[in-house]
């Protein structure tokens, strides 16, 4: 009778396999979380030690920030236009079209600009960073730096993480501008709302706090997504396949981290 309950030797029940699978994923996520924190601490320590690599830092500002200008501006513009179109169709049912401007502006400055800018940084700069660092790791270029008495954390990671932290808010500001302009285009030029109504209602309701909230979030997101990309790339192993897997993991965990952090930062500002 017992053989029916236990099953054939060496085979597990689907429930046990599922529990094991979930457990492994949770452990892996926990290890990655601790690893990212530890690497973040190391980046922080090396960031304040000389030599300060200003040239590398500006090169990363250029790559992460300037290189993302077009994609962020386009995303912001169309996000604002879509949001204005949808909110117009909702608000006109009860004659509140004048609230389209502030609605678009608040949503974009507080939430959409930091979140979507961070996702753009992740996709564009994070993926490239992870792949570059991963390739350097598996071809021993990272080891070569260490043997030449150059800290790879300071040389490679510090400029990239700082670029994420400083360029995140600047890109979010660009997103804010493009998004509100997109909303303005739809509300005023397409739907016929007066310029005065759009501007005055937006000024009445949207304050500097809303913009600052978005910029703080953008700095945190920028730092975190670049740190995750660096972590995955820096510890990549297993040749080209391993680098590909590291990049996939970096993209997925960065996106998830942005949404989770967005919730907690929202609690911090409004909880």
């Amino acid at each position, binding site marked *: 009778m017992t053989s029916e309950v236990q099953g054939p030797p060496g085979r597990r029940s689907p429930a046990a396999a599922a529990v094991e699978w979930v457990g492994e994923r949770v452990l892996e996520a926990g290890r990655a979380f601790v690893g990212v924190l530890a690497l973040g601490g190391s980046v922080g320590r090396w960031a304040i030690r000389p030599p300060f690599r200003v040239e590398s830092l500006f090169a990363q500002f250029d790559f992460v920030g300037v290189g993302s200008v077009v994609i962020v501006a386009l995303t912001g513009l169309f996000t604002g236009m879509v949001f204005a179109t949808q909110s117009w169709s909702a608000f006109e049912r009860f004659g509140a079209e004048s609230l389209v401007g502030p609605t678009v502006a608040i949503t974009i400055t507080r939430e959409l600009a930091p979140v979507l800018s961070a996702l753009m940084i992740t996709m564009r700069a994070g993926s490239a960073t992870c792949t570059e660092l991963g390739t*350097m790791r598996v*071809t*021993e*270029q990272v*080891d*070569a730096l*260490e*043997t*030449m*008495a*150059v*800290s790879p954390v300071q040389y490679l990671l510090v400029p990239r993480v700082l670029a994420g932290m400083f360029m995140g808010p600047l890109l979010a500001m660009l997103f804010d501008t493009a998004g509100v302009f997109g909303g303005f285009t739809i509300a005023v030029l397409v739907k016929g709302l007066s310029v005065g109504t759009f501007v005055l209602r937006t000024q009445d309701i949207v304050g500097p706090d809303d913009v600052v909230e978005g910029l703080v979030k953008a700095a945190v997101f920028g730092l975190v997504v670049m740190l995750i990309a660096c972590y995955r790339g820096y510890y990549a192993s297993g040749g080209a396949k391993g680098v590909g897997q590291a990049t996939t993991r970096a993209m997925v965990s960065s996106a998830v981290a942005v949404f989770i952090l967005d919730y907690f930062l929202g609690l911090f500002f409004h909880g």
Partner: protein
Amino acid sequence: MTGRRSMIEVRGLVRSFGEHQVLTGVDLEVAEGTTSVILGGSGSGKTVLIKHVIGLLKPDRGEVLIEGEDIVPLGDRELERVRRKFGMVFQGSALFDSMSVYENVAFPLREHTRLTEAEIRQRVAEKLALVDLHGIEEKYPADLSGGMRKRVGLARAIVRDPKIVLYDEPTTGLDPITTDYVDDMILTAKKKLGVTSVVISHDVASAFKVADRIAFLSDGKIVEHAPPAELRRSTHPVVQRFLSTWFGKN
């Protein structure tokens, strides 16, 4: 030993990765100005050993003394100081592929010296000439053959005139003529710069050509460490079997 002072000394080095014990108690001494080749089969732990010598890995137990200083307990900053005594040539060259040959070789000078650009240019040209490379400064690693990359890697390793040069499988994957050329480069570096060299290899012919002493790594331990002529007379079965692949059974 030869009576010269010890440059590298490894005592009772033990290192495991998970359940697998790779180094089970390595003892090794390399005298100043000599070339020691660490010979052993693939997966015997040669690269793990050399990474301990330069402080890229920390052992579970044991000591690694560089000019008498144990580097195992050192932190990042102190290790950087010790690593300035080293140059290392990697199996795959490990050249920075985003930099030209010139920038690669100049990199250690830019990081650790206050030389002017003209002095750096002169030093780079000198070291590239030492490894018989001319007019390739503006090329990128992807434009070079495997042998040329190895030589650029050697030029980068010796550009700051280090006391110790480590070679990780310098002849693996090269044709016989290029292998011979790389062997000559190792001998030239020793002769002209007086460096202490440690070469990781499974290439018996190269080992016998460049080594003052050969250490044989087997089962995570150095089972023989002797001049090449003495090693040929070794009675250790693994050493005998390994050498017979090159010298024949008799």
